[in-house]
């Protein structure tokens, strides 16, 4: 047994050497930081190393179970935005995919797809900048509206409209891209199924209900599971870019809370504690959701090996 291991090592050492740089990067940037989470249990000071900092047990987690108002505000905002994304944003790519799939001309379909996919590749900085330049108080629309005596819209930097604003930005950026996976699922359907429905006298709605939607069911479940794991993670870059304009009450989410407390205020231990709890809950949610998916007979994100 031992000797075969040694023999395999001798045979494969060069293969392993080839993978080494990649493995080192994976370990360094994915596993080593995990250990860095110990500072959640320490009183970290910038002039001390992580190991020198004194242990403080669960003190840093106090902000969570004492229900610090700023933390609760961040948590509430996170959950609200997540809920909006699941209820409002999530179904739109499905509808758009069904619509695109029903187009008769392949050429038109491809042009529309090309246009709608493009924003996905833009950074959030570009998206936020575009929204400001189009809808901001001194933006394209309001400039035009002032000249033509149309109503001025205060859409940007308005705390009351922050949720609709970031929701529409999310839709603008990623809805087209979101259709890809649903279109792929629909295109795998045997057209005879559609024809069978039609021959039985069913119209387009019946086809949608009995063929198209069942065909994308497992993809929908899969994406919902993945989304569930991200319930505590919402548009960090998008929000941090616009936080100054609307204030923290309206825009603080858990990720910005961690950033503002940790990197900006220098309260690393507390920020790490919040981040750790957030990560642990996210991981637990994915595992639970996947289990549920298995119970319902879906494949989930990973099957048991």
């Amino acid at each position, binding site marked *: 047994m031992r000797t075969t291991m040694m023999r395999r090592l001798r045979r494969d050492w060069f293969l392993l050497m080839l993978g080494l740089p*990649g493995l080192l990067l*994976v370990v360094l940037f994915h596993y080593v930081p995990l250990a860095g989470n110990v500072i959640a249990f320490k009183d970290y000071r910038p002039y001390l190393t992580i190991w020198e900092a004194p242990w403080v047990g669960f003190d840093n987690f106090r902000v969570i179970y004492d229900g610090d108002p700023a933390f609760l505000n961040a948590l509430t905002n996170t959950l609200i935005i997540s809920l909006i994304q699941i209820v409002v944003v999530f179904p739109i790519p499905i509808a758009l995919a069904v619509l695109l799939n029903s187009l008769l001309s392949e050429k038109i379909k491809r042009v529309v797809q090309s246009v709608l996919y493009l924003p996905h590749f833009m950074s959030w900085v570009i998206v936020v900048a575009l929204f400001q*330049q189009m809808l901001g108080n001194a933006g394209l629309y309001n400039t035009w509206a002032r000249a033509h005596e149309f109503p001025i819209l205060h859409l940007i930097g308005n705390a009351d409209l922050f949720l609709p604003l970031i929701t529409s930005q999310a839709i603008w950026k990623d809805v087209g891209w979101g259709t890809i996976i649903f279109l792929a699922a629909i295109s795998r359907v045997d057209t005879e199924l559609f024809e069978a429905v039609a021959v039985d006298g069913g119209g387009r709605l019946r086809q949608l209900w009995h063929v198209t939607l069942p065909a994308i069911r497992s993809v929908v479940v899969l994406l919902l599971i993945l989304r569930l794991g991200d319930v505590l993670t919402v548009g960090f870059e998008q929000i941090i870019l616009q936080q100054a304009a609307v204030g923290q009450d309206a825009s603080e989410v858990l990720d910005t809370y961690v950033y503002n407390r940790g990197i900006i205020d220098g309260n690393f231990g507390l920020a790490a504690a919040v*981040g750790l709890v957030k990560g642990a809950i996210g991981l637990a949610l994915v595992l639970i959701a996947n289990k549920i998916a298995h119970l319902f007979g879906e494949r989930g994100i990973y099957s048991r090996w």
Partner: protein
Amino acid sequence: MVTLASRSRTPQGSARKPKLINGAPAPNPAVRVLKGIVLLICCAAVAIPFVGVISTSLADQEQITQAGGYVLWPERPSLDAYEAIFRGGVVTRATLVSIGVTLVGSLLSMAVVALLAYSLSRPGSFAHRPLLMLVLVTMLFNAGMIPNYLLIKQLGLIDSWWALILPPAVSAFQVIIVRAFFMEVPREIVDAARIDGAGELQILTRIMLPLSKAVLAVVGLFQAVAYWSAFFNALLYINSTDKWPLQLVLRSYVVDNTAIGTDLPGEIVPPQQSLQMAILVVSLVPICLLYPFLQKHFAKGVVVGAVKG
């Protein structure tokens, strides 16, 4: 019944008894008009901002002043704004930084990912399963912002461009995709090469890489877009403004509207808006240049990733 209008669009050969197009009865005209309107609005919502941005960046002073700030079509297009931002100030430097980080990053990433994927592509090799798990499991968790920041700090990479290049260089997702392609190469070819005396390196460079050019292109393009767009890592790790990549400049000059022109020497300063729009366009150009290539491959890449993952 099928109307005349829809018949003209029906592909030939589908003139069978129950009129079916893609297995569906031909839609009625009202529905088709409605669909057209919805799609037109969708496309316009994406296209108009781009047109507005490009036009304003090209418009001259007079027209912009006349229009109050923005134009949807430049009457006398000029490149003044671009000349101004590329006269050697912050924007010029940031553009070069972004180009450098993107090039070095995506080449490094492609190389390391290909090597790792190859090394994990042979079931039965030494520690194959544990190493594969080591990579795959990283998809399930993220260590968190603070530990990542502290790591970069401990490595002494704060204010270094390596902090932008190294952390995102290898992701499990890319390794899976490339590995899947390598594993589809028939074993016979590899065995034959080995009998002919080829070593691992030769098998990789002479057989695997040429056969998987497409997937490597996908990984490289996606990485290039990611490096070009990276904003948050730059915000975290790059403190000195003279090392800023373009995304940070874009934020401070366009999103936060910090006064521009202070470091732009010269007598004629083009209008604020066209300077801002020119910076925005510069940050859009590489994406738009890569987009046709991305589009050719991405659907396939995404689907492969979803199926194999």
